[in-house]
């Protein structure tokens, strides 16, 4: 009985590759809302996933001086670590300077990345207000928001990134099994 259920499941898995296809191994357990909430840290380009909270450029300057400047330079121009600012208009040159201001197409990526990976020596330690603030400061260093800007879940995804229009997808879906 048990064996035949498994055999049926296996045949189903092998013969079809559609997402709706169910198997019945009975392995794993439902994820609890708390488990999901703790790990669900990604921020989508439309702002989905951004937490409540806000941060100003001036608060961000303090966070930056404290937790980022040692690696990224007082002005964000890098040394020893990657530059976070500068390079505006170098995209057409032979050696483009790829910074948040001169390259990055979405401001939401900045929040997402800083929260998950920075500061390099203590990732996932910044509170939402600190991430909003230091994101605002980095955008300010790139002349993308004014000095009095305050960013939150609504205003951050709305920040216009200068090179966005240049980004195109190179992905052409292959049909599974076809090469």
């Amino acid at each position, binding site marked *: 009985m048990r064996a035949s259920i498994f055999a049926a499941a296996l045949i189903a*898995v092998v013969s079809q590759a559609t997402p709706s296809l169910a198997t019945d191994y009975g392995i*794993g357990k*439902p994820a609890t809302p708390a488990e999901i909430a703790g790990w669900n840290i990604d921020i989508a380009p439309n702002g989905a996933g951004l937490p409540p909270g806000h941060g100003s450029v001036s608060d961000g300057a303090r966070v930056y001086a404290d937790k980022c400047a040692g690696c990224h330079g007082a002005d964000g121009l890098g040394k020893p670590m990657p530059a976070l600012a500068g390079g505006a208009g170098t995209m057409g040159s032979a050696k483009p300077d790829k910074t948040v201001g001169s390259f990055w197409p979405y401001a939401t990526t900045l929040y997402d990345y800083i929260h998950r990976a920075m500061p*390099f020596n203590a990732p996932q330690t910044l509170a939402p207000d600190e991430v909003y603030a230091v994101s605002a400061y980095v955008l300010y260093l790139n002349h993308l928001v004014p000095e009095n800007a305050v960013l939150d879940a609504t205003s951050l995804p709305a920040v216009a990134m200068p090179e966005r229009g240049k980004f195109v997808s190179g992905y052409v879906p292959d049909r599974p099994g076809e090469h």
Partner: protein
Amino acid sequence: MTASRRTPSTASRRAFVAGALTLATAAGLEAQAAIADDIADAPPVTPPWQKEQGAPVMSPPYGQPSKFESAVVRRENSTGSPYPTREAAVSLTPLQALHGIITPNGLHYERHHAGVPSIDPAAHRLLIHGLVDRQMIFTMDDLMHFPATSRIHFLECSGNTQNWGKPKPEHTVQDTHGLLSCCEWTGVPLKTVLGELGVKPDAKWMLAEGADAAAMTRSIPIEKVLDDALLAYAQNGERLRPEQGYPLRLFLPGFEGNMSVKWLRRLKFGTEPWQTREETSKYSWVMPDGSVRQFNFVMEAKSVITSPSGGQKLGASGFREISGVAWSGRGKITRVEVSTDGGSTWADAELQGPVLPKCLTRFRLPWRWHGQSAKLASRSTDETGVVQPSHDALLQQRDARSYYHYNAIQTWAVSAEGAVSNAG
């Protein structure tokens, strides 16, 4: 007769092999005799290791290579690392010292963005959520209870081979192509696990996230997820090495290495890509027209001669086998041609089986080095008809600003003295 005449038939190539081997044996014997005089323990002496017992079993419990192979190790770039830290950096596979198609686990290249975490498998979890019917969480034991499969595939870092500009002559194949490895990966096909959850029809992309300090994330198209994506927990017969994502990694055959997220902790289904840092700031191509191409996933047809290769010395003239590896992220390799004159003429190399899809294929061609300068190059073709481009042909489509996915023909220059250097 040289190997580089117009593509010979298999029959004439075999004839060449036979002739060359006879010559090689004669030359080889002379060379050996000359060397034997200088080495104390060579014949006619009975060497000391025959006059005493060797080391006992379990010396050590986990076997190590011979001490005489201590130079066969991963290295950082020989002309200096471009990375500011050694946690967000690379180490390179010594392709010049490998045989066949399998990369030993301790020699698999590394590319980390926040170092190698030390993860307790008992505490590791895989969360799958978003656009699925049932959001679920799996332990390592759970994942290992599913029906498993093993497949041999290459993994290549998207930034492998920086020969866009003027080649660095001193670069070895470890420098130029060492972000390439090939292992047998064992795990559960992702679509098997997804059968337990039910992916909703509007799910078009999947976010994969690592449990390292970079919480590495990439967006993966649903077509790949449902094709051959693997949740891998073993590598060449043993559990994954920490550098390769222990206890669990995603493995996406044929796609750029970064997408096979290591230390995998979370998969989330959605309708659009997430535009993570690693698919915007990095791993995107600045094109000649100024546009930026994202989501360039497949590693295209490529090959490289590993012997002879950069930094090696050919020694006395005589028989040499030209050998290397070819691969394509689209499927099987169907042909590898080798040139000894910098691409003027080409001969078909022998493809050593098994020839597997999205896997390294070892190729071999007999060659007699006459003590003259030569330019050795290889060119692969895959089963979809893609032919590895020349440097110039690649540069007509893209330029150095695209940085990633350099797959042009690699040429090694051999000097009349037998020194081999990188000619780009």
